[in-house]
């Protein structure tokens, strides 16, 4: 009699474990399935902010590019010729 009771208990425990496992698997499947359904975020290409040509930044950049030739350097060739006289 006891043996049959123990057997019934074991079967009910196994049944519960099985139900819990099925629920867990279902939840996992549901979650992963939802993820797959989620729309893919569109990756918009990052466009560089256009710098206005009359902005102070652009003006500073242009001013920085202006270089005035070094006169002494430009005279070097003539100086070398004069020195050879």
């Amino acid at each position, binding site marked *: 009699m006891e043996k049959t009771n123990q057997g019934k208990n074991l079967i009910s425990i196994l049944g519960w474990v099985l139900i819990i496992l099925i629920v867990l698997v279902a939840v996992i499947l549901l979650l992963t399935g939802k993820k797959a359904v989620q729309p893919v975020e569109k990756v918009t290409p990052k466009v560089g902010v256009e710098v206005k040509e009359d902005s*102070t930044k652009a*003006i500073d950049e242009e*001013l920085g590019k202006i270089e005035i030739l070094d006169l002494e350097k430009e005279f070097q060739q003539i100086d070398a010729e004069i020195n050879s006289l």
Partner: protein
Amino acid sequence: MKKIVIYCALISLIGGIALAQGALQKETLLERIKTTPKITPQQFSKEREEIKKLNEKKQLEIRENIQKKREERKVKIDALKEQLREKIKQKISAKKQEIVERVYERINALNDLITNHYLNVLDRLEKILERIESRTAKAKLNGKDVSQVETAIEKAHQAINSAREAVKTQAEKVYQPPEITGEEKLKLEVGKLRKQLHDDLKAVEKLVKEARDAVRQAAVALAQIPKVDELEVATPTQPAQ
């Protein structure tokens, strides 16, 4: 009666021409927006383009003028080179003759190179100044106080014009060949010519640097206006009917 009508017609014609010239002389954006404070963004862009074209035309005219003078100068320099050759033939060795001729040629070529470079710098500075004026005009149209920038812009215009005049004069110069007496003082005599060009170019360089500094000052004054880069020409609102 007829005379009065003719006089009136003549006066109005002369007045009209004077007014038209006055309008043409408004070569800066700030001067133009003074007369049209309720300017649309399209009109503003149009005015800017016109100013840019006027500046480019002026720059091109200066270059063409210099180029024309250079061609005339080249003929003179070639003749002077020939004279130099004849003069030094009996006075110094053939090797030194070659060097003296080469130095003389290089003196004039270097003058061309440097004056060209200065003209390029001044053209670029003028373009930058036009941008400064554009941003200043936008600030002014938005009710900002731009008096300091306007003063700095005016100074920069003057500095660019002075430097350009100096470059033009320098570009037209024809350097005379050195006076050669013999081999003893050869270095000294050729050195005098070199010093002459160097001093002349140094004086022009000073003016070009002053022009660059003046434009920089205008840019600094402009940057002191709070949030100046965010200001744009607003579309004028239509009056309610």
